């Protein structure tokens, strides 16, 4: 609000033009790198293109109607939910635990800050290969150790429809938890020691200090990590595709793998585009709910 007694001077129209002109390059760039692919996807979803780049005709909302009645899509979205929450839970727990360990003051804690980043810097394809090697029934170290302690015939969980998804969640969480650990570790450093000292003087034990001080003060960071981590995890294709291709028997066929499969294995580009648009809308809705649910706490 302008100070009392002073009226707001109207800016000349040329001033506003300058503003628009200054943001125009960025606007154009955004339109190119985000707008064009999105618009192209929507247009593709309204056609009947099979092989990407082949001839097609306009079919309206037919692909959407087909997709929404496809039980395989809903099953894939359900698996995506399991994948998302599994990753979120395991990654957050691993990250939190690790952050508390590396946040200590011992020499070991300080040294571990460096090597805890190790899984994060490994390329996804290498992670996939390493985990497949580890669990292979012929030459994997895990079945060999299991055999040494009397558990014979242990095969790779990635080949088992009941174990593939949990194993993939564990593999993916191992790959990405250092990011969360470093962020939480950074946030922990911002909590003043005085608060803990005051609590200690008041007789609070470690658990109460964690629950009443650490956890509430970390909430904004955990919220941001949760949102980014959810969207990130949901969209992962490479880890799953490299190891199981969505199998065995669709046991790890999440929505993004389902889309990839439709576009490039089943050669249904337009159907894949329609499913992509549906998942974008779903994700946007989840993100909106998430942001809305967290916002009042931030404002307090």
């Amino acid at each position: 609000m302008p100070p009392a007694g002073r009226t707001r001077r109207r800016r000349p129209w040329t001033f506003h033009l300058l503003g628009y002109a200054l943001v125009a390059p960025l606007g154009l760039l955004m339109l190119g790198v985000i707008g064009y692919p999105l618009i192209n996807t929507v247009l593709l979803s309204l056609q009947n293109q099979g092989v990407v780049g082949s001839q097609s005709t306009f079919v309206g909302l037919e692909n959407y109607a087909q997709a929404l009645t496809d039980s395989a899509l809903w099953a894939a979205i359900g698996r995506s939910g399991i994948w998302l929450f599994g990753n979120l839970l395991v990654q957050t727990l691993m990250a939190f635990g690790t952050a508390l360990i590396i946040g200590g003051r011992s020499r070991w804690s300080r040294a571990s800050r460096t090597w805890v980043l190790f899984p994060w810097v490994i390329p996804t394809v290498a992670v996939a290969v390493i985990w497949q090697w580890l669990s292979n029934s012929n030459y994997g170290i895990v079945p060999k150790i299991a055999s040494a302690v009397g558990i014979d015939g242990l095969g790779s969980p990635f080949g088992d429809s009941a174990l593939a998804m949990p194993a993939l969640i564990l593999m993916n969480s191992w790959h990405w938890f250092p990011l969360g650990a470093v962020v939480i570790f950074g946030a922990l450093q911002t909590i003043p020691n005085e608060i803990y000292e005051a609590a200690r003087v008041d007789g609070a034990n470690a658990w109460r200090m964690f629950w009443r001080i650490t956890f509430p003060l970390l909430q904004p960071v955990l919220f941001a990590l949760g949102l980014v981590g959810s969207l990130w995890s949901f969209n992962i294709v490479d880890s799953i595709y490299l190891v199981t291709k969505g199998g065995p028997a669709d046991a790890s066929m999440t929505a993004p793998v389902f889309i990839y499969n439709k576009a490039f294995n089943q050669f249904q580009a337009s159907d894949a585009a329609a499913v992509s648009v549906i998942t974008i809308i779903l994700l946007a809705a989840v993100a909106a709910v998430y942001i809305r649910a967290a916002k009042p706490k931030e404002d307090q």
Partner: protein
Amino acid sequence: MRYGKFKRLTAVAAVSVLGLAAAACGGSSGSAGNDKTLVLWHMEQPPNRVQGFQQLIDAYNATDPEYQVQAQVQDWNQIYTKIAGAVQSQTQPDILFTIPDFTTYVRPLGEVRPVTSLVEELDQAHTFGEAAKAPYRDDDEYWAVPLFGMVQMLWYRADLLQAAGISEPPRTTAELLAAAERLSSGDQNGIALPAGRNLATDQVLYSLMLTTGAGDFFTESGEINFNTPETVRALTLYRDLLKFSPSDSGNYSWGEPQAAFNSGAAAMAIEKGQYLAPFEQESGRPASDLGCAPIPVAESGGQPGSIYYSNAAMVMSKDDEKAAGAEEFLRFVLQPENYGTLLNAEPGLFLPLTADGATAESWTSNEVVQKYRGCVEAMLKQSETGALFGFVDGQYVDSVGKISGQNVLAQVVQRMYSNGESPEAAAQWGEEQMRAAVAE
């Protein structure tokens, strides 16, 4: 800074951004003009194969042709995506290696040139086997030049069979099943079979489908006819064999069965000739321990067979002169004195397709080919009864790429193996899936 200057700067910035964007969108098809390079895409990634192909290309380039060939290695798993994108952006290679079903996928993209006169000329000069060229003929034209063949065999560890008291390799499917059971004990599996969702599983199942009488799952008019008693019999056999395969077969592709075989964790496997070259080094066993036999045949209603297909090269140059240059390179490859360099990029796996190639010294002098001459001869013999689905008995089912591209056969196996579905239910599902794929 004055507003006018701001405006000019802004305009310059906007034009620069637009210019950069336009430049990024431009690209180049790399055709015609002064560009004297022929880009060749192949999907044979193992280092020895890359090196072997490069050796051949270097030999050709040393002849100082008008167009020099440049190889770019691609991935079979990614090529469907990449070639579609490349054609869309007009940056497709001049020469693209292919197999019959992949050709049916690439042709509708509209940039494959017919090579009929070249194939006929090469046939006159070197004599192709009929099975090598037939899958590439459609609409009265040849669409690719056949280069080398691949066929599957039953591989067995002679030492392990002997230890189990089995004197001869199995000849029938019943003997195969019995041998797999007898060879399974402790840490050793009777056979290693792939059951992952991949081409490896498609191909091993199809070999057994051929020998159990279920090889042709298209009617004469090209309709799907998968759900038959013969198919169910083949699926039952595969399911039963998987009981004697390592417990993580559901994730197996090409490499895992071979690793199990060479380590002695599996006594048998069904695959192509890539088993020859690394056997001694990887297994630590003498070459005589590696045995090979035709794919076992069903006691009744079966016939000798194995999955077999010729690998070939398509010409995709936009420019006529470059296309002629590409054809010149392919002529060079099939000359008997050069052919061995291509085949020995993976000796035993890449089999000759021409009459003079089969006796070419450049191929037969290879150490691996000489050492395993018996198996190589057996593979050439097996090739005579080999087939590929969609191309059985002279058929050309142009929608077969949609079936192989999504590994429907492998998915059928996974439904039995991982979901415990009956062979009947899996065959029914496979039929529906194939019909849906073809209808798209």
